């Protein structure tokens, strides 16, 4: 069995450092397996979040050799093992302990987005008729596993710490899923413009690059929302048209 070296950030909100652990690696192992092996053998108190180990729950987000990744979907065979593998917690969130960070901001921000409000049912039995094409369109957004890697790399949050002013890419995807939901009737455009700070996004597409679900966050979610906001609030012809219609 081959050996590799792992340098894992150990610490808490007061600070920390990279600690080196050697570990045996075998065929097919992912980074999370190595972390578990180290936890079982050398550092029982090594803090890490995980659940499904199959890229479905979005718990084990971290920065592996500087790349934001799900540890359970990062195979060791894809990393240069002749040098140490460096594993750090997500930088955009306050550290709690070791690889675990405080992601509560994301849960708080979600509560501020207006909830789903369906139109009246289409059929007398209280059900709706929906075209598969309309389902497919929002499926892209609904498959988000809330790993928060997009929030982690968004410079508005990571570098500028504007968590209060800007909900970030994950929650813009959530808002897009609601806004483009075939049954939804709620209007979130004013909130998107003001409370949710959609204007802060300047489309660098860092979020799209790191999404483990391959959601085209910027092009398919954020830009269409931005366009709707612009149409609603900044289009003089549209404004005139609406004024006459009223």
């Amino acid at each position, binding site marked *: 069995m081959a050996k590799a070296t792992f340098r894992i950030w150990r610490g808490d909100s007061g600070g920390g450092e990279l600690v080196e652990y050697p570990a045996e690696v075998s065929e097919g192992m992912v980074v999370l397996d190595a972390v578990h092996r180290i936890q*079982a053998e050398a550092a*029982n*108190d*090594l803090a890490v*979040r*995980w659940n499904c*180990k199959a890229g479905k729950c979005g718990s084990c987000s971290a920065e592996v050799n500087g790349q934001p990744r799900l540890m359970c979907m990062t195979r060791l065979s894809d990393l240069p093992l002749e040098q140490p593998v460096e594993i750090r917690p997500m930088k955009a969130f306050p550290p709690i302990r070791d690889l675990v960070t405080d992601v509560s901001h994301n849960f708080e921000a979600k509560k501020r987005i207006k909830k789903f409000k369906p139109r009246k049912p289409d059929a007398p039995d209280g059900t709706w008729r929906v075209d598969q094409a309309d389902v497919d369109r929002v499926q892209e957004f*609904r498959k988000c596993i809330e790993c928060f890697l997009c929030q982690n790399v968004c410079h508005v949050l990571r570098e500028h710490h504007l968590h209060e002013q800007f909900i970030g890419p994950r929650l813009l995807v959530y808002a897009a899923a609601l806004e483009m939901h075939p*049954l939804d009737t709620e209007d979130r455009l004013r909130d998107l413009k003001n409370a949710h700070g959609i204007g802060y996004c300047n489309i660098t597409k860092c979020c799209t690059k790191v999404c483990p679900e391959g959601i085209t966050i910027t092009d398919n979610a954020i830009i269409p929302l931005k366009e709707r906001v612009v149409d609603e609030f900044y289009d003089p012809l549209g404004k005139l048209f609406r004024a006459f219609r009223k």
Partner: protein
Amino acid sequence: MSDFPRFEYDVLVIGAGGAGLRAAIEASAAGARVGVVCKSLLGKAHTVMAEGGIAAALGNVDDRDGWRVHFADTMRGGQYVNQPRMAEIHAKEAPERVRELEAWGALFDRTPDGRILQRNFGGHRYPRLAHVGDRTGLELIRTLQDHGIHQGIRFHMEHTVTTLMLDGGRVAGAFGYEREKGRFLIFAAKAVVIATGGIGRAYSVTSNSWEYTGDGQTLAYDAGAELIDMEFVQFHPTGMVWPPSVRGILVTEGVRGEGGVLRNREGRRFMFDDIPENYRTQTADTEEEGWRYCQGDKNARRPPELLTRDHVARCIVREVKEGRGSPHGGVFLDISWIRERMPNSEEHIRRKLPSMYHQFKELAGIDITKEPMEVGPTTHYMMGGVRVDPESQMSNVPGLFAAGECAAGLHGANRLGGNSLSDLLVFGKLAGEHAARFARENGEARLDEAALAATAKDLLSPLDRQGQPSVEGPYAIQHDLQTMMQDLVGIVRRGPEMERALDELGKLSERATRVAAPGNREYNPGWHTALDLHNLLTVSQAITLSAIERKESRGAQFRDDFPDKDEAFGRINVSIRKGADGRMEVSREPVPELSPDQAAVIEEMK
């Protein structure tokens, strides 16, 4: 009064998977103050892993379906040791629970006329599973989560309950710790709903995450509740087997529902070789007929790959044992073959099974649209658990309710795929409703906080033992427990081996009294693992004792020394309780009689 921070609720829900969230939503809607405690972050519970779909007799794809068929299928799948009233309520209420999800924002795949699409699954006579590709669980948990956060429910994420508190015989609240700082907390509650899921971590090959350590079953047992059916552990026939690090990760039954076939190394579809008598009339005679079934031909019968999970798992074990397995100790599951039958099959597979495609591509380097997968059984689901009243979901401990996987009764000896998500919703709702009512009708309970100082001290003992002589770490004990249960109380069981398992459990319990966790109280998984050992040991003992007691083979329980069904055991449930002396007691309880109506439905559907 103690110094522990204290929260007060009418209803405390332990667990935030589908059942816990649904219970919390219902209790809150009934006007109760509701708190939810969960070990992970919100939305990460095992429900998220459910793939294939949610069973409900909507009749959208085949209008011959209805609650009677669903009820009869569930009873047949459970080999008639289910609690029949639960199976009836489940079959009747599941459609409404699915439609309600849609009103809360869930989006399922559609039929051509825009209704909810339903797919085939093992043991279901008609296409019955509402689904979204192969990520139905994510859709379900996210819908409940996003609905629930607007209902005034308080969520305590990354908290663990270690002890239920009683007032006389009645539940009074719970005691536990928050993982972040390791502080202890009191949750005073008039009613408690346990919705903690399964026990998969008692085995070494499992589809379950670190959370599934039998917490709810143990909390209830320690509080005096009765457990039943604990011998029935479902081994899902298709888990990944290669590479070793992914062994056990689930491969959805949806692959077979979409036409995937099982083959041994000789290329033979071995499932045709052994079709149980009670499914013979419902099973295809030829490969051709099986394919037509998967394509929606109403006159075709289902392929044998879609027989119940217990049977398919055993057939796979047989193939492997007799030397016809795949290179890494499984068999082949092939969906790529459908290219012979349909143009653009690759796109079809990626659309119907996106997360399976992704999972095999990323973790095993296999393209399932082009080549077969290697699969083998994995510990998946606990049919047994807390015995509850079918109408209210209350256990024999007043004020203590249970719903979802940690409760027992619906599935009997074997759960049908898709019946779990519907179970969560139907009985989660009932538990929430009745817990709120119980809280309303029975005021505050008295909490004995004085006793908690000793409990807290006990919980801290693994940390206090650091550095002492003859201690050992929690992971080694957990690992040895898992290996032992896998070897001695696994898919194929024998009396003498299980007697040995009891001895081993005794030794492991002794080792657990000397478990030491390094580090401090802050987010320390070693400490948490040490505390979970009590639960794993308790449920492992319950499984082993129950499996010894049932001297027959039925559903998920296969006894090599009693390979046949025994009618006498078909009339009992094995029951587990904590005796007055603290020892685990086993007894046999009669399965509730079928009502005349239920009996008539079963007869009619035969």
